[in-house]
């Protein structure tokens, strides 16, 4: 498996290197779909220059290629670990006759699982979204790398490293905060601690993990304070994320609303919009408490849809996980519609941008319509995978061929 992975890495690096040296790089790094005010490389350089550090420590494109490589490698290894885990669990479940008799075809075979880690790495490295993001030198790649490393450490079972990396990710952009729940659930499952509020072992571990997380967060924030000598960075980074003052159009849902509404509703609407990211954590954690890795996927997807300055790099991260759920394919219902929508939107973004900004014949409504459609497609995609996952679990326990009480064939409906 090392050979194809190496080949993949070489291909991915070559594509990026070629694009970096072509005239497209400048064009791409100016696209609003690819860079947001939070992750534009221009601003990083600017910030470093302002800090009077002279030349930035990791200038140049090699750094970005390396982060992409690290992300892919971390994802590769995590999915490999996860697959082993899944297979082991499946074996136990089979041995203890927990699965219904007629759902043999739903079981996963080592043969089909063999190439999944490679596919995941490929989906990340060769995804046009990632390539664009990398060529634009967006720091989104760095965020993705940290989240991927966090997933890797979590799946490897290292609570301390996982806590530290989660703190780092949170420090970067706040939203990964919601990944705390799935990570905790994963560790609890791994240590065979039941999720029971009355058990002291549950509380003991939760507090332990929370302490690691909060502790490292405090240390990192403290370090920033000592480096900068003031707390100014808190409002200017996190305030910037929460109150959305920069209304440059992007692929997210915020900019249009915040540009249109009356100023005195701003606080209310930022609360309403921001709550979306955090809101789904609790119900999803309850529903998926047995499947923390799938929950991580759901959370990353929700973050990338509802965050205040999303870019295509964020989308690429959760899309990399799709091959890991390839066994759900048969239960997906709208995959054709979703892929058409996402494909069309990706092509229409630059076209409508051109019509709006350069030709002057269209206006912001056109562009926002596509943004809405793009997000609709993403939500449908995530919802579809969620439904498919639950449905497969249902079939595993209740059998594949469901009958109604009167003996006719039954269908499952998500309502």
């Amino acid at each position: 498996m090392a050979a194809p992975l190496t080949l993949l890495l070489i291909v991915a690096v070559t594509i990026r290197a070629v694009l970096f040296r072509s005239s497209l790089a400048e064009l791409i790094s100016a696209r609003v779909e690819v860079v947001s005010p939070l992750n534009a490389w221009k601003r990083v350089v600017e910030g470093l220059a302002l800090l009077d550090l002279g030349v930035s420590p990791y200038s140049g494109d090699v750094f970005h290629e390396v982060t992409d490589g690290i992300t892919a490698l971390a994802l590769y290894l995590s999915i490999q670990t996860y697959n082993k885990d899944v297979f082991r669990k499946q074996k136990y479940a089979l041995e203890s006759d927990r699965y219904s008799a007629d759902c043999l075809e739903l079981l996963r075979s080592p043969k089909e699982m063999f190439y999944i880690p490679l596919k995941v790495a490929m989906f990340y490295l060769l995804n046009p979204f990632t390539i664009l993001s990398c060529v634009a030198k967006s720091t989104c790649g760095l965020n993705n790398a940290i989240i991927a490393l966090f997933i890797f450490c979590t799946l490897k079972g290292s609570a301390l490293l996982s806590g530290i990396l989660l703190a780092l990710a949170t420090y970067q952009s706040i939203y990964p905060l919601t990944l705390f729940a799935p990570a905790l659930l994963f560790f609890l499952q791994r240590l065979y601690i039941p999720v029971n509020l009355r058990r002291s072992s549950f509380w003991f571990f939760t507090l332990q993990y929370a302490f690691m997380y909060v502790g490292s967060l405090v240390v990192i924030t403290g370090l920033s304070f000592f480096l900068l000598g003031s707390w100014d960075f808190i409002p200017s980074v996190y305030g910037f994320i929460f109150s959305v003052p920069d209304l440059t159009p992007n692929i997210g849902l915020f900019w249009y609303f915040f540009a249109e509404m009356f100023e005195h509703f701003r606080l209310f609407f930022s609360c309403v919009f921001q709550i979306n990211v955090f809101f789904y954590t609790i119900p999803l954690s309850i529903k998926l408490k047995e499947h923390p890795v799938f929950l991580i996927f759901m959370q990353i997807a929700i973050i990338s849809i509802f965050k205040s300055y999303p870019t295509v790099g964020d989308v690429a991260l959760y899309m990399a996980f799709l091959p890991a759920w390839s066994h759900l394919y048969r239960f997906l219902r709208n995959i054709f519609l979703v892929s058409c929508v996402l494909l069309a939107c990706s092509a229409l973004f630059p076209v409508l941008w051109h019509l709006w900004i350069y030709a002057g014949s269209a206006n912001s409504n056109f562009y926002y319509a596509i943004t809405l459609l793009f997000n609709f497609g993403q939500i449908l995609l995530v919802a579809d995978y969620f439904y498919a996952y639950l449905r497969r679990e249902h079939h595993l326990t209740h059998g594949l061929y469901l009958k109604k009480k009167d003996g006719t064939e039954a269908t499952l409906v998500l309502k």
Partner: protein
Amino acid sequence: MGLLSDPNRRKALTGLLTRLNTPICIVCYLAGIVWFMGLAFEPFTLRTYMSENAMGSTMVEERFSSGERALSLAKEFDAHKRKAGGMPVEWLVKAMQSRGLEVFTQSFSRKLPFPDENKERYMVRGTNVYGILRAPRAPRTEALVITAPCSPGNTNNQAVALLLALAQYFRNQIYWAKDIIFLVNEHDLIGTQAWLEGYHHTNITGMEYSPLQGRAGSIQAALSLELSSDVITSLDLVLEGLNGQLPNLDLANLFYAFCQKLGVLCTIQGKLQRNDWDTAEGYTHAAQTMMLMVLKQACGRSWGDHGLFLRYHIEAASVRGINSFRHYKTDATTIGRLLEGMVRKLNNLLERLHQSYFFYLLPSLSRFVSIGYYMPAFGLLAVILLLRALDLWVHLGAPALAAVDGVTEAEQPSSPGVLTVLTPVVISHLTGVALYLLPVHLQEMAVEHFPVSETEAVVLTAIAIYTAGLALPHNTQRLLSGEGTEQGWKVLKLTALLYLAVLLGCTALINFSLGFILAVTLVPITASITPHIALYAVVMVLLSPAFTILYCVFIYQELIEAPVSVSEGWMLFLSVISQGILDHALYGSLVYPLLALFIYPCWLMFWNILFWN
């Protein structure tokens, strides 16, 4: 959302769509064509109206009276032009200075990628002369442009002279709130391009030009004047700009309003307006006018000097004087008054023209079709591609869908490798890249080995690569990916259909006419194609992009009432191709790269299906 989550209703819908797929597609296609043809029918169109408040109700009185003087100036200009053997720069500078303008010149040079045989130029060197009339009443942050091209030979002398006469008259008026720039440009579009790039400090086409010494504010609107005779019978308005971009409809409304007021005959696409919409002739006339607009817009070139202004957010149109054999004549004074009135109304603008439509078709000057009315015609054609794709998708997943969605016994047949689909896609696109790059780069080699001129070499290389592309895929197919399967071509067709749908959709948004014409020719054959049917191969070739261009040439000639024989048509076709390549190199027109890099490869993918084995 019930449709998306209720499996029974979904099943019913997909069942209906797959069972009735072919009839629905045929109905959609016919409906699309009928809808489009219906757009020219007067009751279905809207009457034009002035949306811009600042131009609508304000009273303007035209007092320009020096038409005769303009005509004598034209003779003087002609004499100096002959003497100088080109643009009489010094005379123009003096003439503008004596009329109280701030005068500047800009020199530019441009080497064409290959000789332009239509206009007989290769190394272009020229000078633009422009004079600025500073606004006495406002802070000079905005400007208007009136331009007249200095053409070789006898043409356009009157336009330059009228420009000078207007400058003299405007100089004495006190109501100007915007700077007015009078521009005389050499080498038509190349000069305009150099001037615009100099004005906006951009360089997108590799032109060499000297920087502008004097500038005015941001340009709000521009009028280009073309006039070659002392009296005219009618004025023609030209709107189509680069890449099919159109100015705001209010500019056309303004022109029409003044033509009505001054009693000047006005045409669009050289066609007068008729009032008998309920007769067959009336409808045909309107349909012809609209078809001409569609063809002109689709070819993506700038049909007058105004076309390049549009790229810079400047609303612009060309006014062209036509002298035919009618009795009713209009003199230069009236044309001067018309321009005076238009400029004065534009001078009243408080913000850029934006109230009215940017996307429209005009069956006549007083009627228009907006985007909301014509887009369904395209939508009906595009939906066919999606329906076919859905049909294929359902068939590909047929075993899985036979049982209740997802629950199935049948083992999924192994899906075709990515390689089988990827190979034709990559090969097609490489052919497209070759078609885009090679003609211009290989011209020297071609000229060495064959007895042809550079221009012919470029065009013939393009045609050769295009034809060679037809032979390429079904030779490489066997070599690279071995035996193709039934599944293989279906997946390829699915990919190609979705690709074509996205491609046409994007094209239609930027340039509706181009998207629609391509959809009309490409959709029927691509939707119905299956491997190994000889008839399809013939139809496929006859409906390929190159043949579409050929048909368009013939239809265009038919519509402007100058029908051509087959050989003349062929020569025109060749010159259209060379012009397309030149337009791309000189002004950045996107039609040639779109056809070479996207449409043609996409068509090749379908061609590949035909020879699937």
